[in-house]
């Protein structure tokens, strides 16, 4: 911790002469600024996507986990009796907060996209649906299935797990991909800064030789480059982060449930603070990359 504090203090406190020993270089400065800015911009989006996917995964898992459906597929004359029997069982089932049979109108509305609004349910052998809302503790789906099998032969319990799991898995995978993207962005930033630092060291070979000749330690020489690249990465990443956050802020909101993934791609609450970590992280990556590049180069010199 002390060492980290010393490093940060040394980076912050400007030594005018030490800063001047390396001439202000051209393209490496712009390259570092641009690369850090672009990567921070992308990192903001990757972070937003990852957090949004995480929210969706949690939301889907919670919402779907709390609901189930019982389908009563019985001959028309037995359907009402089996529905009533199923509802009685549900009333005494632990973990069921609410259970009700859908009305004819509700079932017709569910089928309307396929059969049209004029559908007469009496003309079709449509099973009766019972919507089950679970308590937060949840119900014993396996036990309920056994009871239904014994007392309501036409009942089929669907606890949504069959199609809930892929959705939740997809959202979780998307969240992981978001974090993987952030790691890749950090790696690319490190590679770009390393390239720029190597170019700067090569372009300043004479400066390095003179400094070694007059007794400068590797640490002194490396620091002259490290400070410069770290600050450039910090400034570039800060600019990229601000632009990225503005872009996320102005993303369209609202829409129906189908579009909620795209329109919900943003930050919520305290998550707006998370992008603020990007510039210091970019600076840390630049610090490590430049330090490594400088050490490697200097060790090859006399």
């Amino acid at each position: 911790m002390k060492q980290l504090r010393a490093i940060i203090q040394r980076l912050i406190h400007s030594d005018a002469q030490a800063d001047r020993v390396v001439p202000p270089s051209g393209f490496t400065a712009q390259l570092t600024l641009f690369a850090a800015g672009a990567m921070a911009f992308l990192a903001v989006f990757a972070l937003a996507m990852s957090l949004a996917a995480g929210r969706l995964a949690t939301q889907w898992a919670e919402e779907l986990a709390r609901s189930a459906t019982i389908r009563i597929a019985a001959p028309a004359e037995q359907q009402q009796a089996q529905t009533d029997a199923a509802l009685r069982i549900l009333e005494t089932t632990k973990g069921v907060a609410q259970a009700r049979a859908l009305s004819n109108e509700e079932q017709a509305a569910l089928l309307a996209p396929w059969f049209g609004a004029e559908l007469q349910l009496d003309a079709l052998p449509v099973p009766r649906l019972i919507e089950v809302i679970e308590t937060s503790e949840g119900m014993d789906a396996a036990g309920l299935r056994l009871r239904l099998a014994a007392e309501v032969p036409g009942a089929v319990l669907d606890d949504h797990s069959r199609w809930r799991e892929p959705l939740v898995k997809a959202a979780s995978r998307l969240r992981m991909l978001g974090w993987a993207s952030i790691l890749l962005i950090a790696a690319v930033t490190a590679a770009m800064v390393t390239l720029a630092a190597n170019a700067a060291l090569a372009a300043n070979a004479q400066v390095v030789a003179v400094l070694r000749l007059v007794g400068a330690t590797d640490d002194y020489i490396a620091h002259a480059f490290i400070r410069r690249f770290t600050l450039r990465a910090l400034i570039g990443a800060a600019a990229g982060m601000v632009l990225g956050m503005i872009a996320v802020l102005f993303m369209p909101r609202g829409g129906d449930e189908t579009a909620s993934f795209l329109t919900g791609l943003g930050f919520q609450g305290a998550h707006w603070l998370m992008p603020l970590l990007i510039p210091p992280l970019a600076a840390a990556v630049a610090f490590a990359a430049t330090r490594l590049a400088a050490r490697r180069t200097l060790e090859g010199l006399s």
Partner: protein
Amino acid sequence: MKLCYGALLPTAGHVRLFDRDVRTLTRDDVALLRRRVGVVHQDCQFLDHLPVSENIALPLHVSGRSAEAQGEDLGDLMHWVGLTERAAALPPELSGGERQRAALARAVIMSPDVVLADEPTGNVDWDMSQRLLRLLIELNRMGKTVLVATHDLSLIRATKAHVQARVLRIANRRIQLAGADL
């Protein structure tokens, strides 16, 4: 010469600098050692983007000493090498002789124990070589060890006329004591 300030390591035999075998020195040890050895090259290099005065004061800065605190000494040193008027000039603007004198000033600003001059008069005319020689002799009279490598026999003769200089000749890859035959 490079063996004498740790720029090269011996492939055979031993080189000891200030009682330490150069093979045992770390890179930081070499850097610290160079603060005790002033080096003047034939093609002396500078930081071309810094003025001459800052180039001369560079060893002070890299060793953590305040150049401002030594401002008076720096002024005296620049006067000694005759570069007071050129303090603000950039190294590419200097003549060959001025560069050599600036390099000599940079080499002695840390008050080193030893001054190494590798062909210091190689790129300058006769008058300038005599001027540089006088500066080196003055340094020697101030108690500094001065080691000069040169092909210029007239420089050696001129030096021996002023100080008790030991002359070593390298022939057939071996150091020989030359002395009277020069």
